[in-house]
């Protein structure tokens, strides 16, 4: 802590930061553009000028850029004297001199840092009379719109896109006042984090393209603190809704998880919640046909079914449904009859992760991932399976540089200076995978081979670290040296990190990763592991089914065969979980299939009673992320007419006609009480309980609408000129109102992390987030609760899981078929969102060109995959980033059947492509 003097007042601030950051965290208003908390300072815009004085007697001082000035004890500055104010308004006037007259038709307007800073600096009339500079724009794909005229040359975009996120296709081009930020030519932005440009750019150069097609101003959005549902990391988001649908998703700061950035799947995947894409009507299907039901009718049918089925009732839960929904279903059908709605292999792998977490392998938050100084990634293509984690790994590999910078006394916020240490090698990062991953370019070592081989090398690494007996005696020399190199790096590191997960569908690899983790843990207590799970609540579902009953999906199939044939299926598509024949047979055995879902997925057409439920945007609930952190998410808008939250349908049907007075929090309470592994939910409840918060809130709720929400008396007037009553959310910390706790009090009440969206008087854009920074400690509302406490008596025996030796024998002709994950494609929810679907790959079989050549195959030939378990016809695509002997198939595309992978397959040509490839040239697609 150091003391600084600002305009005659003394403040205590954290040492080691720059003056701008210090002033902002004190709540002082100091305009700036080029500084960003995650990107550091470059001193490019000159907007943050202050006057710095030599000592107490100095009364002239000199101008200094706050973002480039380190705080030091006794530093004396002024923000409000004429000299620095005149300088700052001069800067903004020049920046604005040729700014286009666009605000009314600019998607940034009302959410614009440039607008805020202009107002803050007091510039309001253009004196410049010359002509304005213009630029042509570029087409940057379906996600981001480009309007170059609005640029103020702060360089934040390229600093984020290239330096922070490792993108290659966005450049600063040209010279002097022609500097242009764009691609060499039109085309989709390649980085999976391109959407962050929308928030990083302080002006309207990069804006959210899908939002711009049906745009609403920030002040017109009704927002909520929510959790992203598109992967297992649980990034915090702020979805904004208007006119009954979500309009956009923006980042919501969480220091331990997503920080300031989201991935593009999370930002653009939400359109599956659009009312026109969803189930909104309860229906019953009989022999005679389809019949729509009113909510009351649907409820009593459900009640009847539950009553009648009695002993024959089973329920299948879902890893994408909230803890509450799964718990409610389990209560209805009984724990014995509640089955995990995931494939057998996925179930096995998630349980393995749980076992590892219980036995004391500490799982890392993304913030901890960023601190690692040696990383081993086993079988995960993070960009596609846990995208935000990939961004954290990219930061972690620079830790060597940072350490060097610290040794040279360069402050870390001096971004360019630290990056100039580029001769320093990156921190070690090793990746095993069957194909090129998005992080290969920052890796110091790659093991690109089949999953079996990856398992063997992982096992050998564990052996090299701690003499754990190795599974196999015969290792190639290459494998030996690679394993020794990795083991040494991990042993030398201060904070080594192992990342593994479920995307390979290969439990033996995860078990081998577990062996490394256990070995490393005894070697270095600071060692961490991070797991990638398949879906947003995979861990929650596993914890709910964590008992001795047989409750895998296969067991449900058996139960049906034995006559338990009344199924309630919760937010799940069985065709995504098991082979189609198996599911068909199962459904054939069922007497009744009740489906609660919002998506028109494949199982929907087979259900005979369909109850429309709400997606995340209209529900509250709890999800447990990959770290074991339970986080509660709030609805951005009330349920669409005719729909209810899943647990609400189930709960209400229990009481038949009686109205439900319970809310989701009561459900959580019961869940915490009945399930020892979930006992820590009580901590989460404390964070959410209005009655304990009451004293702090003064009986106010946090409003979901902004203070300037417009159109209140006109929105519904077309249907009925009388205004409807406001939707109530009585038990919750949040209301659907415009009034309540003002943003100026949020920080004092320690509710920063529950803010529906970031806004502060004078700070309309997302940059207002610094107004809500506070010393966060776990336990504050909105921080989430870590659920898993390692237990001493949990010893996991990981040596039993061996690589599949049967699969290992590769005949000359057979290939190992592995699943390949896609950021846009492998998540069925976001595939219902047009911007994401438009970027997804089509179904194909990827082969190494040599493998194709050896079999006389050409790209686009149609082949049949033959294995002991399935047949499938697919066109070929050659890809030289695949390991030889490995074939890959895009995982989990909506139109593709579920496949048991990895699997040995043979290829049979069905049809030759008539697109003849000339030497070394790939025929164009289509």
């Amino acid at each position: 802590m150091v003391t600084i003097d600002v305009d005659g007042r003394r403040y205590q601030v954290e040492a080691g930061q720059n003056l701008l950051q210090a002033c902002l965290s004190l709540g002082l208003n100091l305009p700036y553009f080029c500084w960003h908390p995650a990107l550091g300072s470059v001193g490019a815009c000159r907007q943050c000028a202050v006057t710095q004085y030599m000592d107490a007697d100095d009364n002239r001082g000199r101008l200094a850029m706050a973002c480039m000035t380190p705080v030091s004890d006794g530093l004396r500055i002024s923000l409000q004297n004429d000299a620095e104010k005149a300088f700052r308004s001069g800067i903004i006037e020049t920046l604005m001199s040729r700014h286009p007259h666009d605000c009314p038709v600019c998607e940034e307007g009302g959410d614009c840092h440039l607008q805020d800073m202009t107002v803050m600096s007091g510039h309001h009339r253009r004196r410049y009379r010359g002509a304005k500079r213009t630029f042509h724009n570029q087409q940057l794909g379906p996600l981001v719109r480009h309007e170059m005229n609005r640029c103020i040359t702060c360089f934040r975009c390229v600093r984020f896109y290239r330096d922070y996120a490792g993108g290659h296709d966005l450049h600063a081009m040209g010279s002097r006042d022609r500097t242009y930020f764009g691609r060499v030519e039109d085309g989709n932005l390649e980085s999976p984090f391109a959407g962050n440009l929308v928030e990083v750019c302080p002006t309207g150069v990069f804006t959210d393209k899908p939002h711009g097609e049906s745009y609403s101003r920030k002040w017109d959005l009704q927002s909520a603190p929510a959790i992203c549902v598109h992967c297992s990391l649980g990034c915090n988001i702020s979805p904004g809704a208007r006119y009954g649908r979500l309009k956009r998703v923006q980042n919501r700061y969480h220091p331990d998880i997503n920080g300031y950035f989201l991935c593009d799947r999370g930002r653009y995947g939400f359109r599956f919640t659009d009312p026109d894409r969803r189930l909104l009507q309860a229906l019953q299907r009989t022999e005679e046909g389809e019949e729509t039901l009113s909510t009351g009718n649907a409820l009593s049918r459900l009640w009847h079914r539950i009553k009648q089925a009695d002993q024959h009732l089973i329920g299948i839960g879902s890893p994408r449904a909230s803890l509450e929904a799964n718990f409610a279903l389990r209560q209805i059908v009984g724990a014995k009859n509640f089955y995990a709605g995931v494939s057998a292999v996925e179930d096995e792998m998630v349980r393995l992760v749980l076992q590892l977490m219980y036995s004391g392998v500490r799982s890392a938050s993304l913030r901890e991932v960023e601190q690692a100084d040696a990383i081993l990634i086993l079988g995960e293509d993070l960009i596609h399976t846990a995208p935000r984690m990939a961004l954290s790994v990219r930061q972690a590999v620079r830790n060597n540089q940072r350490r060097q910078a610290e040794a040279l006394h360069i402050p870390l916020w001096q971004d360019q200076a630290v990056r100039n240490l580029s001769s320093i090698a990156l921190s070690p990062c090793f990746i095993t995978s069957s194909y090129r991953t998005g992080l290969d370019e920052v890796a110091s070592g790659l093991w690109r081979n089949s999953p079996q081989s990856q398992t063997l090398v992982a096992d050998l690494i564990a052996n090299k670290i701690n003499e754990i007996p190795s599974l196999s005696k015969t290792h190639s020399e290459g494998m030996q040296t690679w394993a020794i190199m990795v083991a040494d790096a991990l042993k030398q590191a201060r904070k080594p990190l192992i990342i593994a997960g479920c995307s390979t569908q290969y439990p033996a690899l995860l078990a081998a990763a577990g062996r490394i983790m256990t070995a490393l843990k005894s070697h270095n207590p600071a060692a961490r592991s991070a797991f990638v799970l398949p879906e947003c609540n995979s861990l929650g579902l596993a914890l709910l089914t964590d008992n001795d009953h047989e409750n895998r999906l296969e067991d449900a199939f058996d139960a049906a065969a034995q006559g338990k044939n009344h199924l309630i299926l919760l937010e799940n598509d069985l065709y995504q979980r098991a082979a189609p024949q198996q599911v068909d047979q199962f459904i054939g055995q069922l007497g009744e299939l009740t489906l609660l879902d919002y998506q028109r997925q494949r199982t929907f057409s087979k259900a005979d009673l369909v109850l429309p439920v709400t997606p995340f945007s209209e529900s509250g609930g709890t999800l447990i992320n990959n770290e074991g952190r339970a986080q509660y998410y709030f609805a951005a808008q009330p349920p669409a007419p005719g729909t209810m939250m899943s647990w609400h349908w189930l709960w209400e049907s229990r009481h038949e006609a009686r109205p439900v007075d319970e809310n989701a929090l009561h459900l959580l309470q019961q869940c915490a009480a009945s399930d020892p592994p979930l006992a820590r939910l009580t901590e989460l409840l404390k964070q959410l309980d209005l009655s304990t918060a009451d004293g702090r809130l003064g009986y106010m709720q946090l409003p979901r609408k902004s203070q300037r929400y417009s159109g209140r008396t006109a929105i519904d007037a077309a249907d009925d000129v009388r205004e409807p009553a406001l939707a109530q959310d009585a038990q919750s910390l949040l209301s659907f109102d415009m009034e309540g706790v003002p943003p100026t009090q949020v920080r004092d009440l320690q509710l920063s992390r529950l803010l529906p969206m970031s806004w502060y008087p004078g700070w309309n854009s997302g940059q207002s987030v610094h107004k809500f920074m506070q010393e966060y400690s776990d336990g504050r509302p909105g921080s989430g609760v870590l659920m898993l406490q390692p237990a001493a008596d949990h010893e996991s025996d990981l040596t039993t899981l061996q690589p599949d030796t049967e699969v290992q024998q590769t005949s000359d002709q057979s290939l190992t078929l592995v699943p390949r994950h896609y950021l846009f494609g492998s998540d069925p929810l976001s595939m219902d969102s047009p911007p994401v679907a438009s970027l997804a790959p089509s179904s194909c079989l990827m082969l190494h060109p040599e493998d194709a050549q050896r079999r006389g195959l050409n790209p686009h030939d149609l082949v049949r995959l033959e294995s002991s378990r399935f047949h499938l016809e697919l066109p070929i695509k050659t890809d030289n980033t695949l390991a030889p002997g490995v074939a890959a198939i895009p995982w989990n595309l909506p139109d593709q059947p579920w496949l048991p992978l990895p699997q040995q397959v043979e290829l049979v040509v069905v049809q030759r492509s008539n697109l003849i490839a000339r030497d070394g040239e790939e025929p164009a697609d289509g």
Partner: protein
Amino acid sequence: MLSQLRSLWKVFQHSFTPPDTVQYPEQKPYLAPRYRGRIVLTRDPDGEERCVACNLCAAVCPVDCIALQQGLDENGRWQAEFFRINFSRCIMCGLCEEACPTYAIQLTPDVEMCEYDRQNMVYEKEHLLIAGSGKYPDYNFYRVAGKDVGVKTKGSGDNEQPPEDYRSLLP
């Protein structure tokens, strides 16, 4: 005493002044062109809708009686997909007109808006849109703005330089 008598006398005098009241509706009083009555949406000199769906009128409206949704035409021009004013709430304050950056929304001297059914006071875009440009005949926002939405090409608007060639490295 004297002042009371004077007051009585004044009142008495008023019995002989000609009345201000006119026989409405047969006779109509004069309302200035800037009088604040029924709201219209106007068109620009090219005959296109002026409103760019910027939402500023809705934001400024003290009774929140304007609701609209932006949409894009094939050239990327911002337009209101729907535009609704609930006149049963409107207080004819004119703030929307003042906030409008395009002169699209204007108040007119028409005040005869009585209805038996309150629902009829809800006006949609087709009821609000007129054929002409109202009080500001010459202004076309998209000639002044930087965006190219089919009204002018980049660099050919009012007070604009031709587009820069960012491939040039000349000083």
